[in-house]
């Protein structure tokens, strides 16, 4: 299968690879997928005092399209409010990366990872509020 130029660019020069401190209250972590299925994405966001996403990092075990989908997601997340981030749809990722039908699940996984990271952050905030 031939890859789109954007997929190749993201896999050769992935943006925002790395790890944020998962114990930091300002950090939300999403870990989705399974090794047996051939893809696991970990996406992390750090939310600033202004409620916007100040930083985003990812690590992905998966094919080029999975790496590219998560790399693109981190680029898009930065600077967005949580509500804006939550509105990101997998179809937008498919369109941006020109993913073929067999790779659509990679974009779905990226959307799941975003939602999971946001949910983790919100759960932490709720826990903190109820603790105080």
């Amino acid at each position, binding site marked *: 299968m031939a890859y789109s130029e954007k997929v190749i660019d993201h*896999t050769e020069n*992935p943006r925002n690879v790395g*790890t944020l401190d998962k114990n930091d209250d300002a950090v939300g972590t999403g870990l989705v997928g399974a090794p047996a299925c*051939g893809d*696991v994405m970990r996406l992390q966001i750090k939310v600033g005092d202004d409620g916007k996403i100040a930083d985003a990092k990812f*690590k992905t075990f*998966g094919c080029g399209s999975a790496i590219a989908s998560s790399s693109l997601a981190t680029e898009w997340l930065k600077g967005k409010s949580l509500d804006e981030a939550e509105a990101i749809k997998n179809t937008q990722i498919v369109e941006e990366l020109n993913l073929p039908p067999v790779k659509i699940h990679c974009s779905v996984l990226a959307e799941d990872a975003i939602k999971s990271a946001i949910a983790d952050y919100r759960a932490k905030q709720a826990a903190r509020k109820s603790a105080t």
Partner: protein
Amino acid sequence: MPKLPIYMDYHATTPVDPRVIETMLPYFTLESGKFGNAASRNHVFGWRAEEAVETAREEIAQLIGAVDEKTGQPDSKSIVFTSGATESDNLALKGVAEFYREKGNHIITSKIEHKAILDTCKRLEKEGFEVTYLDVDKHGMVQPEQVAAAMTDKTILVSLMLANNEVGTINPLAEIGKLTRAKGVLLHSDAVQGIGKVPFDVNAMHVDLASLTAHKMYGPKGVGALYVRRSKPRVRLTAQMDGGGHERGLRSGTLNVPGIVGFGKAAELMRTEGKAENERIRGQRDRLHALIGKRVDEITLNGHPTERLPGNLNVSFNFVEGEALMMAIKDVAVSSGSACTSASLEPSYVLRALGIGEEAAHSSIRFGLGRFTTDEEIDYVADLVSRQVGKLREMSPLYEMHKEGIDLKSVQWAAH
């Protein structure tokens, strides 16, 4: 720096040896007067074509040890030309099944055969045959005892590959052949990956039918052969292609004369040069493995440690997905058992049958070395792979978790 891209996928196909092409060329053109139809019995164009086909038949017979046991002469009549190994496999299985149907309806094969065998068996099952699919051990080998235990009074055929196309494991055919022969059961072998690369002798191994193809041994694509034993026992087949009665009625259709000539030349080169070539390739393969092993931890060899094709190295790079690694080394042509490289989106059925786990199957890369592989290429590929695996692991959440001491098997993954 070697010339890029580098081809390391010799199990998929091989480039045609220039000497093979040279031998083939006259059989296309008017000027040479050798373009004729081998079935034209009444003029010189036909005779020349037929003569060339017979020479090729002898070469191929000789390569697989298909010789008359009394005279030592190649039994060229035992070679039936086809369009390739898929057709040979179909002809062998369906042809035997149809002919011996009165005798029995049971066929034995293994779970890691090529799809040309497995899907043909599935078809035969629909037609009332019973097929036993033997498990393989963790190295991908069928043990003779399994065959002995599976044979019944209804068994007419055992079909087992000489060497596996993914993991390169060689089956103990000589031992299996003793058992099938003693039971009066025919033994077929899809031998395409092993011919010329590992010992194969139809008489010594009691093989009754064998599928071959030219393009895995530096010959052209689109030409193959089925070896059909002619005596002790004489194997009978029902033809699967009707028409002009070519190939003694077993495979109608005008012979692909240039292709067959090329196949014959390829067989001759394998017979005369194969031994030295295989030693060189085995050394290069072992060096590639060692060089990567020196720089990359957490790798596992898939297949048998010693009983394997000289040019085969199948390795799982744990915590890295195979297709991503293939992209990262895109100037090197290899293959992977990862689901993402298959049309079915399932990881390799061969690797799963070895019981290595889906994760490892997703992480597997098959390097296939061959005649034109150079030492310089080995060095380049070992270095590139080592660097890119490192880079992808930096990007892998699984590697990070592993390094933190998390047992990945204990994690509750949300399968999707």
